């Protein structure tokens, strides 16, 4: 499965929810599918997208938060799985695109290439619902399942180690940050 095809499958869901991505290919591909003010592309501090998503989900219990994480990022902050599992906000969906590779920096293999299993790690950490997907149809079904019934979910999706031609977004970091903040402020004032 190509990550961009997986993203395309669930784009209608992403449009409606608060989305936080890691840097690199995921950010560039989602941006190319269509930017929304409810998308925050965390262009650095690898590993912390899920922590940022946890803060959002705990603070906004009435909103669905979706984090788009990756194997390289998650491996840099494995403790986050234990924190997510401990507080398990039911409105948090943590998607991990696992391509066994640091594709954005040239494709060096990560530990998932030699047997580390992130879904099993999430289960062992105590994440209440762990799903896996290898095809776009499975991926869509898993996201639908996760969003239909509240419950903190980690979804590990196997994707190919390929990315877009360019990682540049035609959007300054701070422009994205202020737009996202203003969007969330307006959500709160209208609720």
């Amino acid at each position, binding site marked *: 499965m190509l990550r961009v095809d997986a993203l395309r499958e669930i784009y209608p869901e992403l449009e409606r929810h608060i989305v936080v991505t890691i840097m690199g290919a995921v950010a560039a591909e989602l941006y190319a599918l269509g930017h929304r003010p409810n998308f925050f592309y965390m262009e650095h501090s690898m590993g*912390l997208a899920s922590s940022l998503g946890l803060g959002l989900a705990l603070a906004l219990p009435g909103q669905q938060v979706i984090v788009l994480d990756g194997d390289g990022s998650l491996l840099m902050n494995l403790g986050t799985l234990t924190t997510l599992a401990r507080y398990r906000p039911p409105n948090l969906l943590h998607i991990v695109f696992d391509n066994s590779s640091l594709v954005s920096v040239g494709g060096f293999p990560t530990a998932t290439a030699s047997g580390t299993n992130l879904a099993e790690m999430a289960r062992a950490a105590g994440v209440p619902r762990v799903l896996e997907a290898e095809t776009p149809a499975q991926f869509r079904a898993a996201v639908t399942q996760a969003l239909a019934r509240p419950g903190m979910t980690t979804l590990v999706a196997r994707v190919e180690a390929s990315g877009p031609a360019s990682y540049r977004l035609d959007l300054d*970091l701070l422009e994205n940050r202020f737009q996202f903040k203003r969007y969330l402020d307006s959500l709160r004032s209208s609720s």
Partner: protein
Amino acid sequence: MPVSLEGARRIYEALKACDIRLVSALPETWLVPLLRLVEADQEMRLVQVAREEESIGIAAGAYFAGLPSIHVMQNHGFLAAINPLVSLAMLYKIPVLLLISYRGSWGERDPWQTQGGLLTEPVLRALTIPYYCLRREDDLTRRLKEAQALALSALHPVAVLLTREVLWEDEEP
């Protein structure tokens, strides 16, 4: 030589006065009485992290969501959180209120705390993070409110250091 329960209660009251609703923390000896008070408070959410870096991500999420928060850690934990302070909080102009127990400074008896103690203030200065070392006679509510106000107006991390004289009851030297 116990942790000062009175000091912990004064800090907790200052957090209440700042309307802090989310407290992320990695517990350590000096911080336990304060975190027990936070945990028992129905209006505050305690999020215990496995590593201090997580706290900076949680801080950004809480800020975006409009929830007043503070992030409590030992100074060695602050040293562990430098990268996200730089590449998340400062890069994205996110206010983060840090409450840091200042080990390894005046009166320290544990040798293992001393190197971190020597480096805490120089590293804060190098990062351009404004900081204030609380003294026993301080109006803690005023100092915490000032730190919170500066973080929000500067869109920058600000640190309040919990010194031994605020949090520890030493025997007479």
